[in-house]
């Protein structure tokens, strides 16, 4: 297995390359997920890039669809398609849409309108339960996204139905487009809310690969649905993007691009 730290760096470089060549996209919330996607796609999840619809695969739903670049990089680097193709992000004839779409090999469902992925994850988890199959479904949520009420319908349903094959990652970077989540409309205390909805959870540093792995192992043995609440830094790895709300969805100038790539060696 490749070194996950190297893969994480490659993913971050891909994200910058893709968004620079597209001329638009969402670097901040993609960079914050690089370690988590490395762990999921390079060792943790059961999946087969040569058979994207393998029936017994685990499923991943990127509910915060604007982080599509991190997903596309993880898919390409694990072998679903040629990494060279990443440069076609957001181009007219590309299968790499601005937000995830089912035409991309490895994408399970289209997302982009926030707050909808966890419900879909509930349905997949329920379907696995009905078929008595052992797979897991992973749903990646943003923290700002938790302001969408539908998430709480889904948290309630999953807790009530003990969907312990449903695992969510909450990318807690405390930034949304209009500023800090805690200032725009705070979702805290997240962990207390999750607990109240009858989920188990683990609070981790979302950039610490060992903590991420340990959390997913704990999630796999959980008797309840499980939330990995990952404290992250939006824009992680690129100094001038880190913890800056304006880098949620800003294109990169040539200078930005060169500076970012120089940092990601």
């Amino acid at each position, binding site marked *: 297995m490749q070194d996950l730290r190297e893969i994480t760096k490659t993913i971050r470089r891909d994200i910058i390359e893709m968004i620079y060549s597209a001329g638009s996209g969402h670097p901040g919330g993609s960079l914050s997920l690089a370690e988590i996607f490395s762990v999921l796609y390079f060792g943790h999840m059961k999946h087969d890039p040569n058979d994207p619809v393998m029936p017994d695969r685990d499923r991943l739903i990127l509910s915060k669809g604007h982080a599509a670049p991190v997903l596309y990089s993880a898919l390409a680097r694990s072998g679903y398609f040629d990494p060279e193709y990443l440069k076609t992000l957001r181009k007219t004839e590309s299968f790499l849409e601005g937000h995830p779409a*089912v035409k991309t090999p490895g994408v399970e469902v289209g*997302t*982009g309108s926030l707050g909808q992925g966890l419900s879909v994850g509930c349905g997949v988890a*329920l379907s696995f339960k009905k078929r008595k199959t052992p797979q897991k479904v992973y749903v990646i949520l943003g923290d700002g996204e938790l302001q969408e009420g539908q998430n709480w319908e889904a948290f309630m349903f999953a807790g009530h139905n003990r969907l312990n094959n449903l695992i969510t990652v909450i990318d807690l970077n405390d930034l949304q487009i209009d500023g800090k989540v805690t200032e725009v409309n705070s979702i805290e205390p997240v962990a207390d809310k999750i607990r109240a909805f009858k989920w188990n959870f683990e609070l981790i540093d979302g950039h610490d690969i060992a903590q991420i792995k340990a959390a997913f192992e704990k999630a796999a043995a959980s008797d309840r649905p499980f939330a990995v609440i990952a404290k992250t830094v939006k824009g992680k790895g690129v100094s001038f993007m880190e913890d800056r709300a304006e880098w949620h969805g800003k294109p990169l100038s040539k200078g930005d691009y060169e500076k970012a790539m120089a940092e990601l060696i």
Partner: protein
Amino acid sequence: MNGREKVANRFGYTDALLDLIAKDSNVIVLDADLAKSTTTSRIKDKYPDNFIDVGIAEQNLVGIAAGLSLNGHVPFASTYAAFIAGRAFDQIRTTVCYSNLNVKLAGMHTGITVGADGPTHQMLEDIALMRVLPNMVVLNPCDVNEAYNATIAAYEHKGPVYIRFVREASPVLTSCDEYFVIGKAKVVRCGKDITVVTSGQILSNVIEAADKLEKTGFDIEIINVHTIKPLDINCLAESVRKTGKLIVVDEHQIHGGLGSAVFEALALENIQYKAGIIAVNDTFLTSGHPGELMEKYGFSSDSIVEKIKAFFL
């Protein structure tokens, strides 16, 4: 059929679901706390493993249905049309239709005859909302048997389908063994003077109106458009070419419903014709007895007769 027996067409929905589950355990019926009203409690009673009540959470209802479909289950998400087509529109658009998922949506209690519950529950905008969505099929059965056939057809179709139902018992106009093909309109009565296009339970009032008009010398052709999308434009165009006169009777808002669908499509055909539409005229209704409301808003058979005469005389 004799047209006298009355049954609420939502029973056709659950009759079909019971038959489908007996053959295919992948069929899962979902409801949002209205199982008695929608009649999906019949599934819960007989096949509890094939039934899920998500509680009062329609956005989650649609999302869960989408997730079930991703693993090969065939979900039928059922609740009042106001709450599924209306409240969960974005979930239907972005999660279900964009990914072309095999999700079936049942919108119950549409139209005027919801009656006493009033405008919050009298869904009159659902056809407009659902028919604009890419990949979506929109069915509007006229009676309990057509509801049965529509539900079976929805199951056999791969992709999203919206089926529209009503609360009140309505006359049985068709039989279960009539053919039902998505996208194929039915000429219910042949005539040469005026084409009347309609859909859903209001068909029975249209038939009554046609009977009355025939006594005054009009030969009415009635077309039942049980599939609003995809629309059977060939059938409609052929009829209008023959009669040169068209009335659309639509128990829905005037904007965006069957009338809009028919006139949009006919605008691309090279036909000269006179036309009128009987629909709800861009207003919210009131609470009231279903029969009184049908009269008040111009959908009784007598009102239809008067309006058709006014259009063409």
